[in-house]
């Protein structure tokens, strides 16, 4: 029976057909269908009052999967990791007020590392905005300093175009997080819906192509170099330019170093790679940075953890070529001679063409002498550690993980000593395999990062290297792992200390370990088991490899495994450049 005001459709005319074009849609439907149109696979989120209409639409669709986290921070981290690992835009959905404030740490983390994510946030209804309504917070205000851009959608007619803009802005230029704040009344207001194929923005046109004159100057400078160095950052990974970087570096035969964010941009096991540079970089990488005469910086930003004291760095004469998509990254901390603004892949491709056309070749004699010097630095073997120790050395765990996973795992980390050991001892040969919070340094990212990666690549080996302090900052996500059967492998390097804090206190605060000791740790094995996972406690070096092999064995392929390694309590991360010191002023392990 047809109700009053309802239309009678002819037989065979299904609802699906009406759904597909020019139909009236509610704001909630528009949000959900926009996500589907963008090809979103996963939405990480947590429901609440302001987003109930959106969740109701999610319930009715099957285009993407919603992953229910246990804390909004983890939703954003998981979306962020999904983006880092796949190169696609990650999506999170949270409610207004505390949903947003919980998400802010995740958003700021993504912002500092230039990760493309779209975060849809619920907001109180437009008439209630500014009235101190229940679960109201000024979302665009609170997120403004840590997003690439944000929107408050006050009219449902603007919603589809705004969603499109959000995805374009997040993914293009220097990527970054975009927040779309949607008041509850907008989610039930209706309008004609058609998802735009693209949206023009007169104020937003990122530069893609490098300046050809500057490129020629750069190539000339590279070919004249006596002591060249290539220094690359997260931009090479984010810009999918690893293959081009390898081609340029191999053609020139120059040494390469990667930043923490740039690991995997150039194969770590390649002889031309000197390892990571910076505060905990290798001796050879830091020395070569300091003493090179021509430096090619690609998608990196000379930050304080990378070059230490800029005044000390400037003591040596060198000419610098800097390629970056963001003009504001160039000549910010270090003056450069040849700035090239553009997409790194584009610029490196152009550079390669020019190098191949050039009549000159690099100075072979000078290059041989330079490599001899570098090999001398390398022979210091700055990453050696005591392998005879009766106590588990954290470096050993990472090395064994690398061996067992054949260097092919996706490795996420939290923040602190274990993060540095992971970066130093897991040799990443491919980009997008190393997932960590480099800029903001957010403890607690490791587990949600691993979830985001594992969901994107269900068959891949995903390891989370963490510490007993960091893991507790988002440990509730063990429950999410259970619900979605996410079989990540957690390796906790448990030294019963906030290791990096302890290390600084030992070096710079007279070994006064103020509040850096983790008392009353839970029994992690029981905790893992309580969440339905597999727990292991490993106390002896001889058991390390077997435990990792078992965790990654076919028998446990479907299971989440929590490995609690009881590691040396007083191990420190070396080499180390003290804050304010120069790159070549490293403290080495042997010197203590």
């Amino acid at each position, binding site marked *: 029976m047809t109700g009053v005001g309802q239309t009678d459709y002819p037989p065979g005319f299904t609802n699906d057909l009406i759904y597909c074009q020019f139909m009236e849609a509610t704001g909630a439907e528009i949000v959900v269908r926009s996500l589907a149109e963008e090809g979103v696979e996963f939405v990480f989120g947590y429901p609440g009052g302001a987003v109930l209409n959106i969740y109701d639409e999610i319930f009715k669709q099957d285009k993407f999967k919603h992953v229910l986290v246990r804390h909004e921070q983890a939703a954003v981290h998981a979306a962020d990791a999904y983006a880092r690992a796949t190169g696609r835009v990650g999506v999170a959905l949270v409610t207004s007020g505390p949903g947003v404030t919980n998400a802010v740490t995740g958003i700021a983390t993504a912002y500092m590392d230039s990760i493309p994510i779209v975060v849809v946030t619920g907001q109180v209804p437009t008439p209630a905005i500014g009235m101190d309504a229940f679960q109201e917070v000024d979302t665009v205000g609170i997120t403004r300093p840590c997003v690439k851009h944000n929107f408050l959608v006050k009219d449902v007619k603007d919603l589809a175009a705004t969603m499109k803009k959000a995805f374009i802005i997040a993914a293009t230029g220097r990527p970054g997080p975009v927040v779309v704040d949607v008041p509850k009344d907008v989610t039930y207001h209706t309008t004609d819906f058609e998802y735009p194929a693209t949206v023009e*923005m*007169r*104020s937003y046109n990122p530069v893609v192509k490098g300046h050809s004159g500057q490129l020629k100057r750069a190539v000339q400078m590279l070919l004249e170099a006596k002591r060249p160095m290539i220094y690359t950052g997260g931009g090479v990974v984010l810009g999918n330019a690893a293959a081009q970087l390898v081609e340029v570096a191999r053609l020139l035969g120059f040494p390469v170093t990667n930043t923490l964010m740039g690991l995997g941009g150039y194969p770590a096991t390649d002889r031309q790679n000197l390892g990571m540079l910076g505060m905990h970089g290798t001796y050879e990488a830091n020395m070569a940075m300091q003493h090179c005469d021509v430096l090619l910086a690609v998608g990196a930003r000379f930050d304080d953890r990378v070059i230490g004291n800029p005044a000390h760095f400037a003591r040596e004469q060198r000419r610098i070529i800097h390629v970056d998509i963001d*003009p*504001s990254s160039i*000549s910010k901390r270090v003056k450069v001679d040849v700035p090239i603004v553009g997409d790194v892949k584009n610029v490196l491709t152009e550079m390669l063409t020019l190098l191949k056309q050039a009549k000159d070749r690099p100075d072979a004699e000078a290059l041989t002498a330079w490599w001899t010097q570098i090999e001398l630095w390398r022979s210091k073997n700055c990453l050696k550690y005591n392998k005879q120790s009766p106590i588990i050395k954290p470096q050993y765990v990472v090395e064994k993980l690398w061996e067992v996973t054949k260097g092919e795992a996706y490795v996420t980390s939290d923040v602190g000593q274990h993060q540095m050991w992971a970066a130093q001892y897991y040799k990443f040969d491919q980009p997008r395999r190393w997932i960590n919070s480099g800029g903001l340094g957010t403890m607690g990212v490791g587990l949600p990062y691993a979830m985001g990666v594992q969901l994107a690549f269900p068959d891949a080996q995903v390891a989370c290297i963490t510490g007993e302090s960091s893991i507790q900052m988002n440990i509730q996500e063990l429950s999410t792992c259970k619900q979605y059967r996410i079989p990540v492998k957690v390796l906790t390097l448990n030294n019963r200390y906030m290791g990096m804090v302890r290390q600084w206190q030992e070096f710079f605060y007279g070994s006064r370990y103020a509040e850096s000791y983790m008392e009353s740790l839970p029994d992690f094995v029981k905790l893992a088991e309580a969440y339905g996972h597999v727990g292991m406690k490993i106390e002896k070096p001889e058991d390390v490899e077997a435990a990792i092999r078992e965790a990654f064995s076919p028998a446990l392929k479907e299971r989440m495994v929590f490995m609690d390694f009881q590691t040396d309590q007083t191990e420190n991360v070396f080499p180390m450049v003290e804050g304010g010191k120069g790159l070549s002023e490293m403290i080495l392990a042997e010197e203590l």
Partner: protein
Amino acid sequence: MRHIISLLMENEAGALSRVAGLFSARAYNIESLTVAPTEDATLSRMTIVTTGSEDVIEQITKQLNKLVDVIKVMDLTEGRHIERELMLLKVKAVGAGREEMKRTADIFRGRIIDVTDSTYTIELTGTGSKLDAFLEAIDPAFIIETVRTGASGIGRGERSLKV
């Protein structure tokens, strides 16, 4: 050094706070900031007076350009330009001082736009330094209230900032 930076941005809610937030987050100086819509109601024109070394000014310009809503940025002080600021000033005007105040205002091409038995309200435009000079020329004891708009600026000749 003092710089006058002009910019055009989308006239949307929160536009001003994006710029103001950028200056406070990155600890840039801000001497004055004026903003109003242009003849095209979708555009806001902003004039920012700031001080800093060449490196800092370069960063300020780049960071402003990076804001998604900003369409164009120009450092007016890089070329020939005109700078004007409006000041409204309420002063005591009694006895012998009343005539003296009128004369000083005349010298500075100020206009008296409101009069009572005991006060004048003076309108004065010019560069910031001219307004400063006027304030120095009169006895501070006579000043009841001053209101300044902050500088606006425009390029000389063909030099222009438009979409």
